[in-house]
């Protein structure tokens, strides 16, 4: 019965479409005219549906990251209701970049704003988790930063979606729709980072501090700048000063300030600054691929990078960088095995570089840049480490 009906309908349609009567021509022209008018509107509707779906996803990411923060912070003093109220009030936190119309002193002003922001974050997190230790506070601070970022992305996408809907402006809608895959990729990275920081697991971005920790191989360390430690090891008769942020809480510290102080302490004896950091890979590149280059490998907003470039240029010090390639998602989520293995390769290459390019007695700084969540400050004495880099442990220079 159904087959016969389908046959009849198909035959009718084909006969109508296949004929060359004036009626068919009119129907065809009418169809083209209607489609010409409605095709654009249909396309906009399809794009709007895509954006709406993405908005739903972003809202879910934001609320889940927020709930994760509240759940974790509730273990340290305040009730969930109180935490929910406070976090909701702080979520829309913003920072205003300094004016660059007059560029003189812009870096100093930016650094001040970043210091104030960091301080404000610390105070807020301390207020919502009064019983947490310093490392836990730093992990909660990173979780909070993720929530703020997700909320900001959600609000911006929602803004353009509603604006496009209100004005029926195709350009607004098309732009946001085309950016959605990348926006969702970044949002997903922040969403997943909440779990990593909650548990204190090393993330991909921790590869710099991990290299520093393994290179230190049990050497004593001490604090040289805010949230930054350093220790000294011997590599083939060269003195190597290893710098990393203070772990195992999620800190970035001020490596630029630390390097500046070490250069001041050791005068003109420092021959090179070798930096190690995670870098965004291009699609098709392998995670954990190690690349070498020159310049300051550090992804800060500006002040720390500027300090390192300034001190290297002033003292005529080689500025060498090693980058470990990974995607933005891998940089913010628990470290993969490939990245962990890349840390060993970086250590071997640093050692080769130091022994081939510098003479015994030279002083070289190695700075492991990145978030040090889940990475401690010292490997226990006697620890051999899987990465046998052949370094001799030394006490920290005074």
């Amino acid at each position: 019965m159904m087959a016969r009906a389908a046959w009849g309908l198909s035959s009718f349609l084909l006969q109508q479409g296949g004929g060359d009567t004036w009626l068919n021509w009119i129907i065809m022209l009418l169809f083209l005219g209607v489609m010409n008018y409605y095709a654009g509107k249909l396309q906009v509707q399809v794009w709007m549906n895509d954006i709406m779906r993405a908005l739903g996803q972003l809202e879910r990411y934001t609320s889940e990251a927020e709930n994760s923060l509240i759940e974790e912070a509730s273990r340290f003093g305040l009730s969930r209701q109180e935490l929910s109220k406070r976090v909701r009030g702080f979520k829309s936190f913003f920072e205003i970049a300094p004016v660059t119309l007059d560029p003189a002193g812009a870096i100093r002003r930016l650094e001040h704003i970043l210091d104030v922001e960091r301080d404000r974050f610390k105070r807020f997190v301390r207020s919502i988790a009064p019983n947490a230790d310093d490392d836990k506070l730093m992990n909660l601070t990173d979780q909070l930063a993720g929530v703020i970022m997700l909320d900001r992305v959600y609000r911006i996408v929602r803004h353009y979606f509603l604006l496009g809907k209100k004005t029926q402006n195709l350009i607004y809608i098309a732009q946001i729709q085309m950016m959605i895959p990348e926006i969702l990729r970044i949002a997903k990275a922040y969403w997943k980072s909440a779990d990593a920081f909650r548990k204190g697991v090393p993330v991909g971005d921790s590869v710099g501090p991990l290299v520093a920790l393994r290179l230190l191989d049990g050497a004593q360390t001490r604090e040289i700048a805010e949230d930054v430690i350093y220790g000294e090891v011997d590599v083939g008769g060269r003195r190597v000063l290893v710098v990393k942020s203070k772990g195992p809480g999620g800190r970035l510290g001020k490596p630029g300030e630390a390097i500046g102080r070490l250069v001041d302490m050791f005068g003109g004896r420092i021959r090179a600054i070798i930096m190690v950091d995670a870098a965004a890979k291009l699609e098709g590149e392998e995670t954990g691929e190690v690349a070498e280059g020159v310049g300051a490998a550090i992804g800060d907003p500006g002040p720390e990078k500027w300090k390192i470039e300034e001190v290297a240029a002033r003292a005529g010090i080689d500025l060498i960088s090693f980058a470990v390639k990974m995607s933005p998602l891998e940089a913010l989520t628990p470290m993969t095995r490939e990245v962990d293995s890349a840390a060993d390769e970086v250590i071997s290459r640093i050692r080769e570089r130091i022994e081939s390019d510098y003479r015994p007695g030279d002083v070289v700084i190695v700075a492991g840049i990145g978030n040090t969540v889940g990475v401690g400050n010292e490997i226990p004495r006697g620890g051999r480490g899987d990465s046998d880099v052949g370094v001799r442990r030394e006490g920290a220079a005074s």
Partner: protein
Amino acid sequence: MSGSGEREQRREVSVGHLALLMALVIGLAAFSILLIWLSVLDIRAGRDAMNAFFQFIMGLAGLALAGKSLADMTRMRLSSGEKPVEVVSVIQCVDCGHSAERNFSDGEYVGMLTGERCPECGGPVYVARIYVKGGGEERRQRRILGLPAAA
């Protein structure tokens, strides 16, 4: 962990969305087969060969589109199907270097003395590595590029 790594790049869809897509693909395939059948009947009966030829071509194109859509659907993943990732800690003896891999415990960090004892020599044990097992995204990219799987 709720899931991690780039292996979750596949498009997420709801069950309803997937069912609708499946119905459309089945409908398109059925209509395409009908067109091909009609065209064969027309050719056998010796009616309007040009029309039958176009029907045949349209039927083939419809089948190809249905096949491509079906292949795309196999790459989709249901929203609820996220695979949890496995975070592991490699613990190592401070004295003899003996190492073993086990599940990560909350609060552990690289360089931490765990308080456990080495099964080989009884020495103290520390966390030497923490990482997730994965690499699915790279395998997918190598497949797209037609490269052999990495060792």
